[in-house]
């Protein structure tokens, strides 16, 4: 095994540069090093000005997503040795505005997340003294998968529709809406549907399916969106057959 590998990293300083460029660094190649370790090596030993986000280094905080050789990846869970003999390109997540080097602006996602009301909606809230809402393990299973989203946004970087149309609500936010819709304790499906069945909501998705392919937590946002379409269509038929069936 060679003992060094070249990283090709995006650099961009909005105060200085007109557009992003690349800079290459040579780093040691170790069996247990992930791409993030290589970046940290650069930051600590070579060039302190390289900027990127990270925190947990165990694939759970969702902050270290970048494009590694063109694929959206959690850099804390991607071994450098997979890219032998190199060079490895490391770029900021696609489809988001680049703030600086490897850091992108994700405020758009947070706005969308808030819009789809990702919280438990009840007609009547239970008092704490009355104990828990009962939920069988099977009922809990129906939404578990969708609740695993770590908001890493790899799926947005993989979704061409989001790249083309930033108004599209996008995979993770819809999957999280569906997480609450399918929670047996929730009664907010219709409220969310009003928001998501608008054009930029679920209908923009053409089922490219790459969101699911790149998701490191197996959330399957593509599936969530198709299920959502089905629900929306059912509701539409219902409202057609029973226009008076006021909600």
């Amino acid at each position, binding site marked *: 095994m060679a003992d060094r590998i070249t990283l090709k990293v995006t650099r*961009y300083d*909005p*105060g200085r540069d007109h*557009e*992003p460029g690349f800079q290459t660094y040579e780093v040691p190649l170790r069996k247990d090093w992930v791409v993030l370790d290589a970046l940290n090596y650069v930051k600590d030993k070579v060039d302190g000005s390289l900027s990127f986000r990270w925190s947990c280094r165990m694939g759970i905080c969702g902050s270290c997503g970048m494009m590694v050789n*063109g694929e959206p990846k959690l850099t804390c869970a991607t071994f450098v040795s997979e890219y032998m003999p190199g060079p490895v390109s490391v770029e900021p997540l*696609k*489809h988001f*505005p*680049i*703030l600086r080097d490897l850091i992108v*602006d994700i405020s758009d996602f947070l706005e969308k997340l808030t819009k789809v009301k990702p919280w438990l909606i009840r007609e009547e809230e239970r008092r704490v003294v009355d104990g828990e809402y009962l939920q*069988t393990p*099977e*009922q809990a*299973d*129906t939404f578990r998968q969708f609740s695993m989203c770590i908001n890493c946004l790899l799926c947005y970087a993989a979704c*061409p529709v989001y*790249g*083309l149309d930033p108004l599209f609500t996008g995979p993770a936010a819809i999957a999280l809406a569906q997480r609450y819709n399918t929670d047996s304790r929730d009664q907010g499906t219709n409220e969310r549907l009003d928001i998501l069945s608008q054009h930029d909501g679920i209908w923009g998705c*053409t*089922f*490219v*399916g*790459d969101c699911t*392919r790149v998701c490191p937590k197996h959330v*399957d946002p*593509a*599936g969530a969106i*198709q*299920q959502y*379409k*089905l629900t929306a269509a059912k509701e539409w038929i219902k409202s057609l057959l029973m226009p008076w069936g006021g909600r």
Partner: protein
Amino acid sequence: MAGPTEYLPKTFRPRVSTYWWLGRWSYLKFILRELSSIFIAWFVILTLLQISALKRGPADYVQLQEWLRRPILVALNALSLFFVVFHTVTWFNLAPKAMSIRVRGKPVSNLLITAPNYLAWLAISAAVAWLLLRG
């Protein structure tokens, strides 16, 4: 003074290339899948042509059959067949995702949803063929 607090909101938003769907195999597959719809439309046109020829009489019908034997049309239809089968396969494979059927609380495995689709496809195709070929 251009102080260090100077607010620099400038972000860089890269444009998606027009040829984005060439960038990755899964994107290309996606575009091919979407393009299959053109061949479905072509099938409808062909069918309507056949019906109208049938209606106009035997001579017209024979003429249409002649036309269909031209290499260019044979090639086109061969391509059509490839695309419509591609459509069928992708459609069946994606169907379970949208349905997420559960029986007694347990998710039904994808195979259980996909397999009946394929069986129905075979059975119905055979039935159609039988209807047309028995005479």
